[in-house]
């Protein structure tokens, strides 16, 4: 949705030269190594990246200490135990350890979010490259189709799909979430590929007889590397948020599987919300900080790319 909006804004504002930092399309591409150099100058961004790495380690290493079946063992005598002692973050309504659920759930959410990003990234970038490079009728059709998809309320459709396919594994769930994500990416990459394909180095390669695929992968794609990185970072944040949101509504992972969304579901009940804040507050804080760091890093990367571009690399 955001990608569609930025594109529309850039089209209308193009004549007035009201391009702005959210516009990834009309700016020239930047070598990502120099972008990283610029990134390092932004102290807060480096801190964000560091925090993110630390939290990832915390989640992935910490979850090794917990066994899923043991954590999800219902222990009614221990309901809503306060933090401390055996259970560092207390227990929830079924007596299950909150810290264990938090770490295991965060791990699942992060893995699922990353998987969706990678999957829709491959499809989106791949289709975008092909469509932008070859052009023609297929390109036109694909763009119409993508525009149609981008208009639809995607979250609603994903919810409906999830409820129809009632029995699903984590893998199917990831597929369902990726069902519409690739469209926006496709369009962004297709537009960029089109402008790149008109450049001299591509024409030179074609004249030399280089295979089309090689041109796309070895020559055009590296030039889009800054776009790839920024786009992937932002969609990672969105996808993690989407998975958490779906689980929160009850249409994500099954309740027996630990997840951040499931922990947050408890916040709906007023008694839990007020009296047993340790159940949902750590989960909310963790996901908030993780997403904040990812987004801040993404914005910093974008600023770094812009700064480099204005300096003429």
């Amino acid at each position, binding site marked *: 949705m955001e990608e569609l909006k930025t594109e*529309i804004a850039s089209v209308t504002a193009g004549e007035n030269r*009201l391009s702005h930092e959210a516009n990834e399309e009309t700016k020239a591409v930047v070598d990502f190594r120099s972008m990283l150099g610029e990134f390092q100058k932004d102290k807060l961004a480096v801190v964000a990246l560091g925090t993110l790495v630390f939290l990832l380690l915390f989640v992935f290493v910490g979850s090794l200490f917990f066994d899923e079946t043991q954590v999800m063992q219902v222990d009614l005598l221990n309901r809503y135990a306060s933090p401390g002692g055996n259970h560092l973050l207390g227990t929830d309504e079924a007596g299950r350890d909150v810290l264990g659920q938090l770490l295991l759930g965060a791990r699942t959410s992060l893995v699922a979010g990353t998987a969706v990003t990678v999957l829709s990234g491959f499809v989106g970038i791949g289709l975008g490259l092909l469509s932008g490079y070859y052009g023609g009728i297929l390109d036109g059709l694909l763009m119409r189709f993508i525009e149609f998809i981008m208009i639809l309320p995607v979250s609603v459709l994903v919810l409906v799909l999830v409820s129809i396919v009632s029995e699903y594994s984590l893998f199917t769930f990831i597929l369902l979430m990726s069902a519409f994500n690739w469209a926006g990416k496709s369009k962004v990459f297709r537009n960029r590929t089109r402008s790149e394909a008109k450049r001299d180095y591509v024409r030179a390669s074609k004249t030399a007889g280089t295979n089309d695929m090689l041109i796309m992968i070895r020559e055009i794609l590296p030039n889009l590397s800054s776009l790839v990185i920024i786009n992937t970072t932002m969609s990672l944040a969105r996808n993690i948020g989407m998975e958490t949101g779906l689980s929160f509504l009850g249409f994500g992972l099954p309740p027996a599987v630990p997840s951040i969304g499931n922990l947050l579901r408890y916040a*709906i009940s007023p008694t839990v*919300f007020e009296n047993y804040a340790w159940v949902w507050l750590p989960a909310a804080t963790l996901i908030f900080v993780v997403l904040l760091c990812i987004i801040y890093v993404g914005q910093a990367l974008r600023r770094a790319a812009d700064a480099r571009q204005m300096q003429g690399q």
Partner: protein
Amino acid sequence: MWNRILRRVFFIIPQLFAFSLLVFALAQWMPGDALTGSLTNLDNPWYIRYLQWVANMIRGDFGLSYTYRMPVVVLVGARFGNTLWLAVASLLLTYLIAVPLGIYAGRFNGSLGDKVIRFFNSISFALPIFIVALLLVWLFGFQLALFPTRGMPLLPESQTLLASLLNRVHHLALPALAFAFSASASTIQRLRSGIIEAKQEDYVLTARSKGVPESMVYRKHIFRNSSLPITALLGYDITGLIGASIFIEYVFAYPGIGRLFISSLESRDFSVIIAVLLIYGLAALVGTLVSDIILTIVDPRVRVR
């Protein structure tokens, strides 16, 4: 220009058609007969059933709800008003917050206020909307006990109009604020960038050298040009509003269409699911249509003779 607008308006017909086909296909996937709420008609070929369904819809028959045992139209109609109230209040609040802050951040670029605004922007961008909603409920509903956190009870008829209105606003405050906090981020960012760019334009320099006071420079020239992306994208905002309203109505137990949608998903009440899906799709298509029309009208590439 009117040519383009007319073409855009007509373009919505194939869009509606494609969307209805999509919904029809989804409905086939659902067990039972989602389109009429009954178990008849399964023998006819699919195109007959499709036309039957469209004909029914035109007559206002959206089938029966399985859980509530009443026509879907009645069920949805009762909630629709609530969601409309919420949508209007949310959008109003969003622009009320975003426009002043965006202008301030753009005008006083680099100041402390700008930095604070940008910081809060990053936060609201990062937070998924339901977490914002939960935090608001906790802060205002429980800790400060200022606003109600659930539902939308209607006052009895005997109460005055003002009392009913105040009651509504009181219950709308937190949900609308939750949406506004989350949605204002992108608007503020866009407005701020637009103003920063516009500040450097030649016509601003000209106006200043003519002696035009600073505030008028901003009002007449800069803001007019920067407000374009915002007004034009209003229609696209509607699609975002749809997704957000589902979460907000869920957290606040607000009796709107979003809440109905979730409960019908939980109870597998497919007729209601289909009907709500159609409403959402229609809203999204109409919203983008409006946006496209506005964009066509204000497109600087189109010169009015």
